């Protein structure tokens, strides 16, 4: 039985400053050690968290742009490049990641509609699919290693391990954020103002999804 907890949409913008402590979904990081309500960190408009996230994504784009251009230059630098056969499981992993993004959207819709149980259920599904993706990537590594393909075997394998590891580490950060949301889920569903944590994590998670598709294309297409 779904419990209806809150009215679905805010009528005032979530940026209102006079909301009391912790109005950002990241409450609890107080200035004072006691974490008393009057000692909570000052609250900033919800859009600030989105701005911050987009800025983080800009930096991540630059990181992977640098890796990409290094890959293009290295490929053309000498004739020792031998393309490796990508493990088939990568395509399965891709489906897992796409499914996790879908599950995240189901979860957010449930939150919009105030269906707390569905919200938590789909959040758990997202997290499990995310972890499964990382597990699948590790299996892909093991498969390559069993064929004697390691980091230093060939520049193409160097870039394969580098890019999958860099993406995997970033995704692990996303899984960490999902754990936080799962942990906070009972509280998050109570106040819609707190959902900025959910929205910001969703931006990151979908971005990681898109980034993976890009990396897969980069590794598949022989430039």
């Amino acid at each position, binding site marked *: 039985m779904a419990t209806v907890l809150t009215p679905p949409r805010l009528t005032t913008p979530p940026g209102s400053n006079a909301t009391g402590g912790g109005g950002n979904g990241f409450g609890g990081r107080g*200035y004072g050690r006691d974490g008393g309500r009057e000692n*909570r960190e000052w609250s900033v408009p919800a859009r*600030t968290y989105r701005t911050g996230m987009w800025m983080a994504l800009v930096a991540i784009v*630059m*990181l992977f742009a*640098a890796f990409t251009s290094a890959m293009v230059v*290295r490929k053309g*630098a000498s004739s*020792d490049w031998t393309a490796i056969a990508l493990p088939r499981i990568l395509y399965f992993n891709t489906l897992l990641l796409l499914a996790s993004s879908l599950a995240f959207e189901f979860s957010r819709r449930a939150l919009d509609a105030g269906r707390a149980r569905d919200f938590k259920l789909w959040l758990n599904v997202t997290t499990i699919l995310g972890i499964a993706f990382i597990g699948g990537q590790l299996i892909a590594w093991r498969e390559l290693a069993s064929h004697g393909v390691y980091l230093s075997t060939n520049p193409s394998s160097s870039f394969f391990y580098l890019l999958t590891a860099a993406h995997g580490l970033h995704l692990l950060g996303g899984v960490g954020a999902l754990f936080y949301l799962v942990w906070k889920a009972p509280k998050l569903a109570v106040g819609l103002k707190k959902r900025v944590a959910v929205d910001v994590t969703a931006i990151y998670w979908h971005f990681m999804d898109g980034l993976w598709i890009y990396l897969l294309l980069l590794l598949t297409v022989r430039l």
Partner: protein
Amino acid sequence: MADAHAEAVHHHTAPTGFIRKYIFSLDHKVIGKQYYFLALASVLVGIVLSVFMRLHMVWPAAHIPLLDKLSPSGAPGGVMTPEYYLSLMTLHGTLMVFFVLTTAPQSGFGNYILPIQLGAEDMAFPTLNMLSFWTTFVGFVVLLSTFFIQDGPPLSGWTGYAPLSAIGSAAGPGEGLGQTLWIVSIAIFCVGSLLGALNFIATTLDLRAKGLTLTRLPLTIWAWLITAILALLSFAVLLAAGVLLLLDRVGGTSFFIPAGLVVSDRIIPHSGGSPLLWQHLFWFFGHPEVYIAILPGMGVTSHIISTFSRKPIFGYKAMIYAMSAIGFLGFMVWGHHMFLSGMSPYSGFAFSVMTMAIGVPSAIKTFNWLGTLWGGRLRMTTAMLFSIGFVSLFVSGGLSGLFLAQPPVDINLHATYFVVGHFHLVMGVAAIFGMFAGTFFWFPKMFGRMLNESLGKLHFWITFVGVYCIFMPMHFLGVAGNIRRYSQFTEVNFLNTPHIIDLHMFMTYAAFITAGAQIIFVANLFWSMFKGEKASENPWEATTLEWTIPSPPPFDNFAGKHPVVYHGAYEFGVPGAEKDYIMQDSPEKVAAE
């Protein structure tokens, strides 16, 4: 945002524990001071290293006390080996560029002043802010730790050029563990800078006070914002390059190590990498980094020159466009560091034209500074002197950039003292003058007391004359073919002439005096911190929001109120106004509005 001047519900009190208050503080003001003192510690170490280098260059056999204690193998008996000279040079460059020029102007003053000038209570993400500082601090500790390992610090310069930086201890002492630690330190620094940049941008975009539109922002804010954007775009690339370099060293990959490389009579077992790739990645970061160092100084200089000329800044919008243009062009010119590394003449031409194009916005800024000074009622405070000194150094150092920007000229001048003189004036000392100006201007706000002006002026004049005596002769040496990075010149026939050696001697004496004069500054700083004259709320009669609150500001800056801004940042000498300046938050209406 909440209503004007409404009492905020979330007004909160300061933490009481020592650790939360001074060590792991979330308060942007404490973090700003932490960054400032980190940079101060770095600059003092950096100066000592440069004094050691200048000493060794003119007296190669001189015993430097304690140096043999620091490194028995690098300086046996206190006389440094050529390799150890390079180690000191590497640490000097790395400390100065990363932990001084990137740290104090942006993270130090920016952290302290930016939220207050915006009318905000703190940075957007205080916890992230604290993490940025402590990340940077760890990077600093890792870098300094290279002094205390067996082989000493790395010797491949602050640019860490591959392949020598990529192949390990075969490349010389310090290139083993020392070089690895250097990369780790820089990677950590990158992460700290990225977190900081993100915070600056989010704060500036989203937390401006009511009425503080983009065209009312102080130019300091514009400079910090543009710098943060540059940092966000460039440090991520350096981080990527660092990861690749580290993998070449510890993972057996060959990103930067070419095939058949022989070092110290040994074949390096890697294949096919491209040393040029490192240079491209490094300088894609490295050139914007130059502007990361200088733009905050431009902001501070604009702010101070306007305040102490009692005139609005000349060409406010032109200043914003010029800074943006400098930032944008900064990403287009990295190739001018690589004219001699091998590049198509067409690319060289493009990089050359782009580089000289930076002269246009730079000249706009310079003329605007002069235009602001022209006809002003000048108040020659120490902060003003350092700002004018900034303009002088920026012009002197910038002009030689036009020489170096041309490949045919650069072929002769590359890797000579001409380059050393150029960049020390234009981005090193000029940026340091920006910091001195900022220190004298904001010290009253930061510490609630005034710095001593007489000591300040004495320090200014010795430093100003001193840096010209150190760095101007370098241009002549460069034209004479004096190559940089040599630890001594007596073994090189064409350099071992009285003209060259005497000039080096002169520069070394000038360096000793200038370095000694910094004691005046440090003494003034610490004496004034405790014994200086108490500062009023607005000792400079300036207009921006930080001067509307007590010195030093309370924990939450505006005591729970939300300031409202009615005026631009530089309304000095407005006809019909009560005083010769109008505070940004003054509701006063004047005819000129």
